[in-house]
């Protein structure tokens, strides 16, 4: 079967391993991910602070393109992109005038027919039901599932998982053979928005997350967002300096963790690309 794929900028750049692992895992279940042609930036997270219409026009264009391409359902691995696309669908469904304006701006027809899935939803819908017997090397580690701020918020619009103390990733990891730990920072902000402007803040914010994960004995942090990953992985030095100790807990995309449980090729999953060496 075929699903649409909107990679977004991160998956083509800093988070190539996310893209690789998503595609690899999908392929293992005979899912063909068809990239939306001529896609553009979703505008996250800056655009909607500047211009509402534009911030909706950008994602709407992506959705229009997907419609044009005949896609019924697309997977959006990046939590920020997912948030923007879903938000756009919600806003445009609510306000026909806005819809007309956006359609006009894009010069593309928009009906809102495309179903948008985040990575967890995609896994839940197409992978988990077929997981039985496929877990060859159970991911037998204590893991801290980290959802970040965008994957489950705002609940009224996304209608995905619980806003506080979400569970969906934990459930998935349990199926992959892991032991999810109960911890307090599942939806705490990693500081992604300040990643460039106030790097020092990132150290503090991400540090708390990594610190708590470590304190509760996590052997890996599992994420579903390229921003989260880059902060927790790439900014490990800043984190370490904030915490005043060296922590080497690796940060894995959920697709990577599942890939490992399926015993897929580590390289195909892009594990070699991480800053913090993946030892699990």
């Amino acid at each position: 079967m075929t699903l649409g794929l909107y990679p977004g900028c991160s998956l083509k750049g800093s988070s190539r391993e996310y893209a690789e692992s998503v595609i690899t895992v999908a392929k293992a279940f005979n899912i063909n991910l068809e990239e939306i042609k001529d896609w553009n930036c979703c505008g996250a997270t800056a655009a909607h602070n500047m211009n509402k219409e534009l911030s909706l026009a950008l994602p709407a264009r992506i959705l229009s393109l997907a419609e044009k391409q005949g896609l019924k359902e697309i997977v959006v691995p990046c939590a920020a992109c997912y948030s923007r696309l879903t938000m756009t669908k919600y806003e445009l469904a609510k306000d026909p005038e806005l819809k007309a304006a956006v359609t006009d701006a894009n010069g593309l027809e928009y009906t809102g027919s495309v179903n948008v899935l985040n990575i967890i939803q995609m896994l839940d819908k197409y992978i988990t039901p077929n997981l039985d017997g496929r877990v060859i090397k159970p991911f037998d580690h204590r893991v801290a599932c980290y959802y970040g701020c965008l994957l489950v918020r705002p609940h009224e619009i996304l209608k995905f998982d619980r806003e506080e103390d979400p569970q969906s990733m934990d459930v998935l990891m349990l199926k992959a053979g892991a032991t999810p730990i109960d911890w307090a920072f599942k939806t705490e902000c990693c500081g992604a928005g300040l990643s460039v402007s106030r790097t020092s803040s990132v150290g503090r914010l991400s540090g708390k997350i990594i610190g708590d994960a470590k304190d509760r004995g996590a052997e890996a942090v599992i994420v579903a967002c390229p921003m989260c990953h880059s902060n927790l992985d790439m900014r490990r030095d800043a984190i370490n300096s904030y915490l005043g100790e060296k922590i080497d807990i690796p940060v894995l995309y959920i697709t990577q963790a599942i890939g490992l449980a399926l015993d897929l090729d580590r390289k195909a999953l892009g594990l070699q690309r991480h800053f913090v060496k993946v030892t699990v």
Partner: protein
Amino acid sequence: MSKIGVFVCHCGENISATVDCAKVAETVGNYDGVAFSVDYTYMCSDPGQNLIKSAIKEKGLTGVVVASCSPRMHEPTFRKACAEAGLNPFMCEMANLREHCSWVHDKGEATTEKAIDLVRILVEKVKYNHSLNDIKVPVTKTALVIGGGIAGIQASLDIANTGHKVILIEKDPSIGGHMSQLSETFPTLDCSQCILTPRMVEVAQHPNITLYTYAELESLEGFIGNFKAKIRKKSKSLDEKLCTGCGLCTTKCPVKKIPSEFNEGLGKRTAIYVPFPQAIPNKPVIDRINCTYYIKGKCKVCEIVCPTKAIRFDQEDEIVEAEVGAIVISTGFTVKQPDFFPEYGYGKYPDVITGLQFERLASASGPTLGEIRRPSDGKVPEKIVFLACAGSRDPAKGIPYCSKICCMYIAKHAMLYQHKVHGGKSYVFYMDIRAGGKMYEEFVRRAIEDDGVNYVRGRVSRIYEKNGKLIVSGADTLLNAMPVEIEADMVVLATAGVANEGAEELAQKLHISYDPYKFFAEAHPKLKPVETNTAGIFLAGACQAPRDIPESVAMASGAAVKVAGLFSQDELTREPIIAVVNRQAAPVYSSCVGCFLCVSACPYQAIEKEEIKNRNGEVIKSMAKVNPGLCQGCGTCVAFCRTKSIDIQGYTHEQMYTEVMALLNEY
């Protein structure tokens, strides 16, 4: 044969300044069926009324139209005058010449013309008026009180003390409700049970009160003064007559680890149990879900030890039918339960508890005998945090309203804690302190100023455990939203007060309405706070909205007075402005075809199915029937009925049609 009298009032100059009253009287006097027509300075004055009365007698008037002020003002006056002169009061109509004409238009022909039109409408209408008699409904002078918390207890006692019978039903094994669980009460800090239990005993001993505990309302039929209630007495597995309440069974019961409802799960109880020592009735019930005998088929220890052989394992639920005239609903409220606050770890961390649980900890009769010890390890918490508005005033959580009692009980909790744990530190996170009430604000100030409770204005975003401490992280909005983190030993959530589970179902059984939060709806938020929209059903206490004890008691007494007022009459008199389904001779019986769309349109469930049977008992026709006790006369059904089989007295098809015709045509 209509002989209508028209009485045009000048209302001093109020009408006559802009309307030519004499002309109105003269013109109308020429209309068909008008036998007498006159204008006069003040119709509502005694001479004015006498004018009407004598005209009725002398001219043999069959209908009266008084053209004066708004009927909302003087309709009763003139109807009474007509009645005194021997004319059915409903043969009197009023044309509103003052509010709807003279006061709102300038002097001129058009105004007088309008006045004439307004009178003509009613002259024509009154030709179709029928003598109506007030509806008499007998009253069964027994009240049903549902829910035996403080509101139910108060209402029962108040009604019983007026000399009327009361049936009080309580779903739990004992009456007492939430108040029996409380430690001390604000703002006086007197012991809750000490003031409550005497009332409970009074209920049990009152000759006018029949108490059914462990009982629920099964169904309700009927209408004001004449309800028929079915009450399900759940089986207690006990012959209450034989049981002496010695308590031997409860001490011998081998199943001892059941979380006690009374102690909010902080204590344990046995499978055969009395909820608390002062329970009324002080007789045990068997909790069949946890009883070994009911699970495995053997045990019967209680039966063996019972000295009076009162245990009945095969006892079944009993349905009691009762005829009652009025109902007071006092089913109270409940608090939001775990997993509603994942961010606060309620249910995950044993030391995050609800306010009600704290009451049990602070209560001398509680599991810790009144010492504040945390549930996880029994240690005395050195630092304790209270969160107000846990759920309340949070539209995102679906509870936009204020639960009203939390501000006060949190202050009380903090105060109790400070009194019991010397050197302990207590924090209260709050949004606003709402302490409206006699001595309430003073009470809160005392907590802050005398007892040193730290009040932090702000919300807590998250509680998590770290190194055995509960990290409460929030923001202090008075300090420019500075992040605050407190490492606490225990956290108390002032969880939102919400409607009982099943409130909706009960409301449907009772045919009363409820608000979006499932609290029962009062008939008018200001002027009818204890009535429901269903006549004869009243509300008391927190089933209507979160209420504290004094309010609940006041409401209960209010409801009791309403009931007593109702019971002071042998018959209820109601205005006969009600809907009626036409009846005809057999074999037609009625033009009603029995589609019963009116049933769904009626806001009062006043329309029932009536089956007409032949001699063999076979149904030959189903048709609608209006229950005059329930119908309030809105007429929604009338406009809805396709066959025009329902009509509403006082606003009949003929009358309304005629009014429109008369409005636009001269007669």
